[in-house]
Structure formats: C-alpha cells, structure tokens
C-alpha cells in the first residue's frame, strides 16, 4: 500500500512511542499506521484460512450430489461473469478511493466509495437472484451435500460482502463528519485491504466452484 505510506501521524511519546522503526522493529515500537495495517493483514490471513476450510469442504463434497442436480446443470456462467465484472470493477474503484484519499480529495473519495458500494450491491443482488432461482428449482442447500457446501462457501463470501457494505457506509459517514483524520485514514486503508481480499477469494470461487463445477 504505497498509496498511504506517506501519511504522517502525530508523534507523541505514548503507547507506540517514537515511531521510526528502522530494520526489523529494533528501533522501538512501530508507528500506529504500521501496527494497524500489519494487524489487519494478520486478520485477513485468518479470514482466508476460514475460507480455506469451506473450500476444502466443497472440494470433498463436490461430487456428493445424491442424484440431484450437478454444477453443470445449475451454473449460468454468463451471470457469474457479470458478477465477477461487478466485483473486479468495484475493486478498481476502491483503489481509486485510496488514491483520492491520499490526495485528500473528499468529494472524489466519497464518489469512488459510493460507486464501490453500488457495484457491491449489484453483485449481491445477482447472487441472491441466483440463490433464489436455485432454491425455487428445488436445488436448495437441503437437496444434497454438494449444494450445502456450495451455498455455504458462496454464501460466506456474500456475507462478507454484506458486512463490507455496512462498513463502507459507516466509513462514508465517518469521513463526512470527521474528515481525513489519521484514524479515519487508517480505517480506509483497512477497508481497502478487506475489499481486495474479497476479490481474491471471489477469483478462487469463480475458478474452483463455477468453472470446475461446469467442467465436471
């Protein structure tokens, strides 16, 4: 995240005292920005580990269709392509918001965040539509273990996107009220990391669930 590395923070001899940390953290505690970003990375890694469990379950149960519909019959790759486009575009606009935040341009930051949110909502709408159609066709999560693992994995990603949208709205309100304060900047950075991580997980879902599912 070179975009925000230039943010300077007020230095007080407090908790994370004298900021500069040359070498391997041997110069004393790192700056708050480094600590927050690093901690959030660690959290994201743990989140990816959680997704990996759902991926593993899906890999094991992918063929356990119990005589019910398979991925080839259920997945509409055109819809998934649009979903992917929405999410990838939203990642792009999210990146734009980081650049605008670095330049301290409130309007552009808010606009980029708003577009990010719209694309996220579009993605969620498409996903819910897909889920509803499958359930209506008798291919809900209760039908087979394969569908259970499908709904859990894709739904877990969808739940993350929903929480991300809630966070996004809260951040926009905070930015509106409090402006580019150091802690708001740090939270925007964390939100950026979170949103990009969801994109990476989606790429894996697109490949391992939909493409492999259709090819099977």
């Amino acid at each position: 995240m070179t975009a925000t590395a230039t943010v300077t923070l007020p230095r007080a001899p407090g908790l994370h005292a004298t900021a500069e940390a040359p070498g391997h953290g041997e110069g004393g505690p790192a700056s708050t920005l480094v600590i927050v970003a690093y901690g959030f990375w660690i959290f994201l890694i743990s989140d990816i580990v959680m997704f990996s469990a759902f991926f593993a379950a899906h890999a094991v149960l992918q063929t356990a269709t119990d005589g019910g519909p398979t991925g080839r019959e259920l997945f509409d790759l055109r819809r998934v392509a649009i979903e992917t486009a929405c999410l990838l575009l939203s990642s792009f606009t999210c990146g734009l918001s980081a650049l605008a935040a670095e330049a301290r341009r409130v309007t552009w930051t808010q606009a980029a965040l708003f577009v990010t949110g719209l694309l996220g909502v579009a993605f969620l709408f498409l996903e819910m539509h897909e889920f509803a159609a499958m359930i209506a066709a008798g291919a809900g999560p209760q039908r087979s273990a394969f569908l259970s693992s499908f709904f859990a994995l894709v739904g877990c990603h969808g739940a993350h996107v929903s929480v991300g949208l809630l966070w996004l709205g809260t951040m926009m309100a905070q930015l509106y009220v409090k402006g580019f304060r150091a802690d708001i900047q740090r939270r925007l950075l964390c939100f950026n990391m979170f949103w990009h991580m969801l994109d990476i997980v989606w790429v894996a879902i697109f490949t391992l669930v939909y493409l492999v599912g259709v090819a099977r």
Partner: protein
Amino acid sequence: MFGKLTIDAIPWDQPIPLVAGAVVGLGLLAVLAWVVLKGHFPYLWREWITSVDHKRIGVMYLLLGLVMLLRGFIDAIMMRSQQAVAFQAPGYLPPHHYDQIFSAHGTIMIFFAAMPIIIGLMNFVVPLQLGVRDVAFPTLNSVGFWLTATGALLVNISLVVGEFAQTGWLPYPPLSELPFSPGVGVDYYIWALLISGVGTLMTGVNFVTTILKVRAPGMSYMRMSMFCWTALASNLLIVAAFPLLTATLIMLALDRYLGFHFFGNEAGGNMALFVNLIWAWGHPEVYILVLPSFGIFSEVISTFSGKPLFGYRSMVIATLGICIISFIVWLHHFFTMGAGADVNAVFGIATSVIAIVTGVKVFNWLFTMYGGRIRYDTPMLWSLGFLLTFVIGGMTGVLLAVPPADFQLHNSLFLVAHFHNTIIGGVVFAAFAGVVYWFPKAFGFRLHEGWGKAAFWCTFVGFYVTFLPLYAAGLLGMTRRLQHYEVAEWRPWVLAATVGVAISAVAMFCQIAQLVVSIRDRAALRDETGDPWDGRSLEWATASPPPVFNFAFLPDVKGEEPYWAIKQRAIETQHLAAAGEYRAIEMPKNSATGFVTALFATVTGFGLIWHIWWMVGLGLVLAYVGFVVFAWRDEDEYAIPASEVRRIDGERRRAREEWLRRRASAGEVG
C-alpha cells in the same frame, strides 16, 4: 415469543444441577449485593471492567480461568465418584446427565480454564518482557476477554436452563446432528465456542502484531525472552487454526439450523470431513496451550538456577519447529478411521518427530539446571514436577503414535491417562508455576510458600494416584466415558483413581488456602523492590505492581537478558543508571466497548440457542450500534503528566537504591 424456551427447560426433576445452580446463583447475588452496597461498583467499573490495561485484562483472564478450573474439577470429581459406585450398579448420575458432565468437563477445561489462564499470563507478561507500555490493540484486547467470558457464561447457563451437549468435548457427527441430539445441548456448545473463539482469534491477531511490531528499542528477535518466543508461536497457531474451528462449527450449525448436509447421514454428507476439520484445529490447539507453558518453565528454570537459559537458539528453533509440525499430525487422532496403512504411517512418523523436537527442549532445561545454584521455591517445584511428568506423558504419546498400538488403545482410558498426563503435567503445572512466579509482580506481594508447596505435593501425588491406575485400566480394555461397567478386573484401578482425585481435592483446598493466607499476610510478604526472585528479564525492572505505563522510559535493550545486565551494572557501580528527563506519557483511555459487545453477544447467543429470533436481531443491531459509537469517539488517549511520572518512578528508584545499599552492607558483613 420465546422460541423453544419454556419453563420446562429448567430440570426440575434433577436435584444436582438445580442445587448447584442455586448455590452459584446465590453466591453471585451475594457478591453483587456486597459490591453495590459497599459502593465498590464505580471502582470495579473504572479500574477493571472498562480497563484496557493489559495487566488488568491479564488478571481478569486468570480469575476467569481459575474459577472455571474449579468448575471443571468438580465435574471430574463427579465422574470419578460415579465410576467408583457404578460397578454392576447404576450409580447416582443418570446416563444423560453423566454424558453432559464429561462433555462439559472437557469443553470447560480446554476452552474456559486452560485457554484463559495461558492467555492471561501472556497478557500480563508479554508487554512487560518486551519493554513496552501495552499491546498493539488495547481495546481489542478487552473485547477478546469479554467475549471469552460470554462463552463461559453460556456454558454455565446451560447447567440450569436446558442442557449441555452429550457428545463429548468434540461433537462428532452424526451424534451431534439434529436427529440424534434434538435438544439445545449441542447448540449451547456451538455458540459458546463460536463467540469465545472470536475472542481468542482477536487475542491471536493482537499478540502476533504486538510481538512482531511493538518492542522496546534494541529488542531484536534473538534478544526476546523465551516466553515471548513461545507466545509468538502460540499466537501464530491461533491465527492459523482457530478459523478452522469457526468454519467447522458454522457448518455444524448450518446442518442443525437450516437442514444442510455437511456431516449427516443423508444426501451425501461426510462425517469424516468433520473429524478431519475439527482435528486440523484440535491438534494445533494442544500446542497453543503447551508452547507458552514451555516458555513459563524456561523462565522459571533459568531464574531459579541462576543461569541463562541453555541453548537459547536451539530452543527458538525447537519452538518454531513444533509450531509447524503441529499442523501435520492431526490424523493421529483417528488412525482407526481407515485412511489406510500408508497415510497412517506418514502421520505416525510425523507425530514421533514432535517428540524429538520436544526432547531438545527437555535436555536444554536439564542443562540449564546443570551446574546452577538451584533454589527450590514453589515455581521451581512445579517445573521439576513438569519435567518428570511431561516426559512420561510424552512417552505414552509416542506409544500411541504407532498405529498398530493405537488400534488397541484407541478411545481407552490409556488415551485418557496419556492426554491428562501431558495437559496436567504440561499446562496445569505451568499455569500454577506462572501464577506463583508472577503473582508478586501483579499484586506487590508473594504467595505463601508453605501452602504453595503443600498444593504442589498434593497435586503431584494426586495426579499420579489418579492417572497411573487409568493407564492400567485402559490396558485391560476399559474404554472412556463409561457411565457404569460390569468388569471386575477394572474395579481396583477405578477405586485407586478415586483416591487420587480425593488427594487432588486436598490440593485444590491448599491452593485456595494459599490465596487466603497470602492476602491476610500481605504486609509480611510484600515485594519492595519489584524483583523478588532475582529475575533476568524486563518485567522485573519495573515496580510491583507496575505503574499503568509499565516503564517511565522504554528500556534500551543491549543484549539477551536485558534486566540482568542492568542489574549487574547497578551492583558494580553501586548506582542506578541516571534517569533521563521525564516526559508526559499518553495511554489509551478506558472503554466499555468490550463489556457492551459481550453483553450483546450473550443476548445474541442465547437467542440463537433457543431460536428466539427477535432476540438475535436485537443483539446484532445493538452490537453494531455499540461498534459505531466506539468508532465515533474523538479522544482515545489521555496524558499522564511528567510530574506524576517522576513521582511514580522516583518511588521505584528509591526502593532499588535502598536495596543496593542493603545488599552492599550485607556483603561487607559477610
């Protein structure tokens, strides 16, 4: 309106949980009344409940862990006494109640006794040893604690409202699925663990960041104390393993609540998937507990031998080695599942390899003691007891790691004896060693030596008298979790184990007496200097108890054992190093976020358990509101003025200088 919850959820026909619940409830009410009537509540709220000080949070974790240890121990007494009388007889505990007791015993001991105690010690000690003023995320730390407390609370509520799981401490399907466990027991288990698991994950993120990014100037990796290294390894394991537990429990919850088919019998569900996933978390979990324990013993053995830790570098490598290998042995928990000889062989060998790495540590401890002037204070006794006990437990573990032997011993009392051998000998002994060792640092006075030694010997003897017979009973074919049995050959061993648990109960009494007597005699046991054990690492450089900011100046670390070097310099020159210019220190403000979050988590969890959906929604919305209120605050630090810092540090310096003078005059006399 109240989902599945009716007045019949309270087990009116079972006197034991009712009486126990009433006693606990009355006790809680009495404490609350005392707190409110005596006007202690503002103090509690200000200094403890909303505190984000890592030392206070550490003490609260320990308190929670020790209370739950007592609860888990009472479960143990009930199991042993039931088996003592249930030979060709039904005993006094009906099967469904007995099943809940052994499930609660395991769940409580691992999640709500061992974990809080170990995390509490890490909380208290790690920032002090790193020479810094707090952890990376102080408020998150408080949230983590209160979520753990929420989990403990839900498990205890299950005692009188509804029931607890009857599935054992890991809810294997299909038994844990709705058709076979239709009650709320498994749901209590799921939500208590999911909520406290989030808290544990927060701790993991916090401590990995703290140890890697928040250290005193000059504190490079190879200058960190052994306890900090083991805490780092343990928290890395938390970050890598706990999300697996979360995911697995979510899948089980989906099966139970929404009719998914992850682990059930129908529609292609796969039970082996659950067993693999849960143990991919479960085995690292063992090392999350035992690695910091190794760290505690390293500190204690080095201090009480008056020598630096032998083989520090090999110790670091061994710690990280165990950290990695612990992730590739999980299948040894179910060799009998039928993965095939090749797979079993791979995991059997990997398991044996852990014994080699652990052996490195054992020899390092032995060589640390070799040639040292050993002081047999209570923490050292626990450490010596550990060395013997853990080696025995390790060897029975290597025996179980051989798949053909495991096929004979799987699910027998031999296995039960083995893991108690390692967990009691490793984690529980470490917990007591750590509590006695760091107690004076936390409270400013030592624990009573006589009662402490009595507690050690009773625990030590009680352990062997309980579990050596269980090895024998296991070899004779007695399986675990038996509510009653018919085989006469097992009877003498079971009775012997009952005697052992009685001795352990005496040990428990000694522990409580130790605490009471020490508080009574605290003036005589006072630790004036802040360095009661002639310590070597930085926590002993500050006062006992430490000021809220820990250090007036962040220590400038020049080598391993930084405090030892500072102390030797002071003794040589007969003077403390000159104090610099005191400056105001900014510390994080108190926050009710943790407490409020936990309150709403409790509401949400209870609603989920009993299918009270409005309650779930309410809890979640309020939790979000609380989060936003916290995020909205403008001031998160307050300043301690330089004059106050000078006054507090001045007291510490006076005590140290007094100690230097006394030491010098004693030397002249000698």
